[in-house]
């Protein structure tokens, strides 16, 4: 068959297939967003579109209204998980988000279904932005209400959740594997745990003299600019301390610090090498859990 016609039919079939698991989410004034039936009874949407914790309703693919309850939020990835009773609505067929490469043709779906198409333009955390893990940058239009909807590959498999709420300029999607992880954790604990020290830091250049004196390779380290009261760092770290490494691993960027404080480190001891008053010293810290924030 004609190649263009075949492509056209494949794209339309992909929309039809993926659209069967797509809900409209009514959780903010006026503009409904989109959600995906990710696992039986669980709908994933974009956290920034879920303003209320209660009184949530969804519109099923067949147009019927159904009530939903909030399971939990993952603000770091702009995901929220809702519980819904809709056993007859198909669950999304998930694709392998690790098989998505830059240049792949993808579709974004909104409830309806409505669709837009484009390509994956980049994979990875965008420069300077603090997110928990990698994201897909998309060269396509996320129309009003598309946040929380599925990113769909050319075969109609869902490979991510789209959001325009994480970046002003860019259209992003959270990869499917990350969504599944987040859903698992929220379904089990109702929240996403993050390791936490309770310090605010900024990158700082390590003076040449200090590098020589301490035999350091790293040119950058983190200077402590804030210590929260009652946090694991309180009384252990001081404003002005320069943190060189944690457990022997050099730290040069606040994002690296955040990545090191994974949930599994909560409750564990960590050795920080810091420079205070021109002298290097070791400080023992116990990783705590980051206090919850609402949205």
């Amino acid at each position, binding site marked *: 068959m*004609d*190649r*263009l*016609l075949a*492509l*056209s*039919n494949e*794209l*339309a*079939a*992909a*929309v*039809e297939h993926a*659209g069967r698991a797509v809900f409209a989410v009514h959780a903010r004034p006026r503009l409904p967003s989109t959600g995906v039936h990710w696992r039986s009874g669980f709908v994933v949407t974009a956290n920034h579109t879920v303003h209320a914790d209660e009184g949530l309703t969804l519109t099923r693919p067949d147009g019927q209204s159904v009530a939903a309850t909030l399971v939990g939020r993952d603000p770091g990835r702009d995901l929220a998980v809702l519980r819904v009773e809709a056993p007859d609505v198909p669950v999304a067929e998930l694709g392998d988000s690790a098989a998505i490469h830059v240049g792949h043709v993808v*579709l974004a779906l909104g409830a*309806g*279904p*409505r*669709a*837009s*198409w484009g390509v994956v333009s980049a994979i990875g955390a965008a420069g300077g932005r603090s997110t928990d893990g990698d994201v897909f940058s998309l060269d*396509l*239009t996320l*129309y*009003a209400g598309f946040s929380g909807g599925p990113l769909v590959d050319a075969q109609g498999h869902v490979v991510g959740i789209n959001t325009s709420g994480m970046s002003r300029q860019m259209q992003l999607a959270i990869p499917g594997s990350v969504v599944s992880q987040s859903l698992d954790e929220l379904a089990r604990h109702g929240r996403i745990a993050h390791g936490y020290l309770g310090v605010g830091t900024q990158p700082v250049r390590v003076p040449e003299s200090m590098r020589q004196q301490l035999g350091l390779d790293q040119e950058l380290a983190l200077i402590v600019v804030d210590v929260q009261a009652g946090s694991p760092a309180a009384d252990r770290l001081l404003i002005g301390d320069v943190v060189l490494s944690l457990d022997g691993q050099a730290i040069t960027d606040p994002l690296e610090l955040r990545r090191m404080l994974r949930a599994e480190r909560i409750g564990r001891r960590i050795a920080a090498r810091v420079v205070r008053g021109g002298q290097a010293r070791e400080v023992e810290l116990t990783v705590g859990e980051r206090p919850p924030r609402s949205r």
Partner: protein
Amino acid sequence: MDLAALAATVRRITVELTDTERVVGSGVVWATDRVVTNAHVVARPHVMVRRADGGRLDGRVVARDRHADLALLHVPGLGLSAAAIGPADELHVGSLIVAVGHPFGVRGALTTGIVHAIGSLGRGGRPWIQGDLRLAPGNSGGPLADARGRVVGINAMIVGGLALAIPASEVTRFVRAAG
């Protein structure tokens, strides 16, 4: 058919409409010597019609419906074959679509996209073919075509980045009523 062949097919049934010097929009060859465009493109009873091969002819507005935003032109000696019309039931959300027009005066420009949705924007509104497709002024009145180059709509508006086209079935009704 590849995209270049598709573009050539759609270009053959697309004309440029000018008002003295300025490009005002596009039109579609709907029948022998008959061109359809948007009502908002042709404000006066006469318009200059330019074929893809550069030939210029005079067009006369024989029917104009501002509410439907459609106009029918009689262009004696146009000499172009009429567009093939795409069946509405073969068009789905996600189907590949192309538009040809003269955005910002660029002649015969092709844009590609997919069907975003089919239907009204709000409750009770008129039906549109809503395209995830980049249009610009100058595309108005031009064809929206499917992957086979068959016309499925007349491009009429851009709303919130969406391309809105009047479905071909509505155009057919208008042309029939105009006689």
